[in-house]
């Protein structure tokens, strides 16, 4: 009996308890691991998605900042222009710097982050971003960029047969890890994108995939935001024409406002306008020496912003009327004259200008009688306006604007192709009695956008 008790005691000495505790810990640990594992996998995916989204957003912001801050007065760079992609491998000393020429655009390549001046944005897998640019917005001396410019890249969503966006200006891709068949080494091999033998790490098809018949590795698209699967893992961010043109118009308006204010502060008056019909002489994107005249015209209160004002301008004298036209805007410093890119990119065919009759040379600079100053009606009425510029927004499908080929201005003479509001179609180039314009709070990219100039 004592022996049996002894044996029982031995059995209960703790080993069984220890085993039970370990078993319990094992079961608990496994449960926690399974639950936490699922949660952790989900968390890792969310975290990766966030990193990729942040990288795409950083790239998009940097590209927009780059293009809006282009302001080379001599005209070699202009607002609205994006840098070329970089097409060399990450091992190349020039990697990250934009290719100097985009003659073969559209051409897909990597984001030129060095040219943008930012830290290289990488997706959640440490991969550089890729970048496709519409040819209408590349660095060029022959293609103008203005309100009429449209992106040419087409992007589809999933299995949809109609495009999600048919006028994208820029598509930025986060490529993710390689899928089956993609090799990203420096070994030279035939590249389906180029049709030539190049290093695998510069061949787009080793990074970007096709989905539902649309291939992101193609130079000109159409591109796709396909469903993420084992064989497709591209993410993308877009800059569309409807996003972009209003931003560029705001940028142009800032420059015009500054120039007109500087002119007024120096002379005491605003310049007369050029005739509304005076765009035949402005050829597309010619060199400064080739530009012909868009002349300031005496007694013209609304029309185009003149390229030439008068030949005898003296900042110490009151503003002279428009007499002869061999002189451009007065040299009032870098901010005091319209930049060369303004005319070289045909902005003067899309921007309209009106001045109050009391704010040109000889005017009283007071708003007493009807028509002394401009008036803007709409959601909010603005009285006693000294001068305005109007930007037309992107063209509606029914509006024909001049194409971007030289001297094609026929459609540009029909005001209906620019302004939607009746008030803004009247009175151009006729008399100061048509002094009422219309503005709405609409933010549609096609809406007329009136900028009030006031000193």
């Amino acid at each position: 009996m004592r022996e049996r008790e002894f044996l029982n005691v031995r059995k209960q000495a703790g080993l069984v308890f220890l085993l039970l505790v370990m078993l319990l810990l094992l079961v608990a640990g496994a449960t926690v691991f399974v639950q936490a594992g699922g949660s952790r996998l989900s968390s890792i995916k969310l975290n990766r998605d966030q990193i990729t989204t942040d990288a795409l957003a950083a790239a998009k912001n940097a590209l927009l900042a780059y293009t809006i801050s282009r302001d080379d007065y001599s005209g070699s760079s202009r607002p609205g222009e994006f840098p070329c992609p970089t097409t060399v491998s990450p091992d190349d000393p020039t990697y990250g710097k934009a290719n100097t020429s985009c003659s073969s655009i559209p051409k897909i390549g990597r984001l030129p982050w060095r040219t943008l001046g930012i830290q290289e944005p990488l997706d959640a897998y440490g991969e550089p971003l890729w970048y496709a640019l519409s040819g209408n917005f590349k660095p060029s001396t022959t293609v103008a960029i203005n309100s009429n410019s449209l992106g040419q890249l087409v992007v589809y969503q999933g299995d949809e047969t109609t495009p999600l966006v048919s006028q994208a200006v820029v598509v930025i891709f986060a490529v993710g890890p390689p899928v089956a068949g993609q090799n990203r080494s420096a070994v030279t091999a035939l590249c389906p994108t180029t049709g030539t033998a190049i290093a695998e790490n510069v061949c787009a098809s080793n990074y970007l995939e096709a989905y539902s018949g649309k291939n992101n590795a193609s130079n000109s698209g159409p591109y796709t935001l396909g469903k993420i699967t084992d064989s497709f893992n591209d993410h993308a961010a877009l800059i569309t024409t409807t996003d972009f043109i209003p931003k560029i118009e705001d940028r142009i308006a800032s420059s015009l406002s500054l120039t007109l204010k500087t002119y007024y502060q120096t002379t005491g008056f605003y310049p007369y306008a050029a005739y509304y019909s005076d765009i035949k002489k402005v050829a597309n994107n010619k060199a400064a020496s080739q530009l012909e005249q868009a002349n300031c015209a005496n007694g013209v209160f609304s029309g185009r912003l003149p390229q030439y004002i008068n030949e005898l301008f003296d900042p110490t004298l009151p503003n002279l009327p428009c007499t002869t036209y061999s002189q451009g805007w007065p040299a009032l410093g870098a901010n005091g004259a319209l930049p060369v890119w303004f005319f070289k990119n045909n902005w003067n065919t899309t921007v309209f200008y009106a001045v109050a009759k009391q704010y040109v040379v000889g005017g009283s600079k007071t708003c007493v009688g009807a028509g002394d100053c401009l008036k803007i009606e709409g959601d909010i009425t603005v009285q006693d306006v000294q001068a305005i510029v109007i930007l037309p927004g992107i063209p509606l499908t029914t509006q024909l604007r001049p194409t971007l080929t030289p001297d094609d201005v026929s459609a540009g003479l029909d005001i209906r192709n620019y302004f939607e509001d009746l008030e803004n179609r009247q009175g151009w180039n006729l008399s100061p009695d048509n002094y009422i314009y219309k503005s709405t709070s609409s933010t549609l990219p096609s809406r007329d956008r009136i900028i009030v100039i006031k000193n």
Partner: protein
Amino acid sequence: MNKSKGFSLIEIAVVLVIITILLAFLAVPLATQVDQRRRAETAKQLDLAKDAIIGFAMANGRLPCPALKVTGCANGSECFCQAAGACTATTVKPPLFPGNCAAFNNFTPGINVGLLPAATLGITPTDDLGYALDAYNSTTNLVYYAVAENTIAGVANALTAENGIKAATMSSVAATTPLLTICPTSALTCTAANSLTSAAPFVVFSLAGNSAAPFASLSAKEKANLDNDSNRRYVSGNKTDDFDDILTWESVNVLFERMVRSGKLP
């Protein structure tokens, strides 16, 4: 009596050894995770500091000057020279000589290293003196700041003088290199050709884990962010055994775009 015997010393020892081994396995990743979390939080703080600096430029038409811990400068506030040219005396008053910061980027470690002007920018958290702190919860973990001092198109201190960028014009500023040069850790004396950028208008950085270490003990990579290098070079890169600084900058294009948006440019 025997039923209440409990565990033997050997059994408890075995359990303790197992627990110790398990804890040892957990402790190392835990320390790594804490450091990773601090680095990520510090990076976010630096991004917020960048936003605050850009916001300051949108409101004031210039970049702020660094704060300094020297006589004449106020805690956490930007600090200026009292005269044009080399700085012999400092002041907290609006600059009599536009944009002439008490220090821009050429620092003397331990004497006048540029700090983020947290009080001027309204940034938290700060230490008791009002200088911005990073996420390492140490009074030595301050947030550092340097700004370019270039004379551009005849405009002295174009980036820190009120409306200096406007006077110099965006195109002139954009064409000026170097402003501040950011080198990769693999090329400490980089040029425009092999830099990450040579046109950073300002940098914001944290010394991270070794903020209390004497300057002399730092690696060459880390010294580059605190020295008085006349080439205005800074170093950025992933954490390695001899480099753990966290440094960021903003593109000059982003600075321009925000200032255009606020009406301070073109």
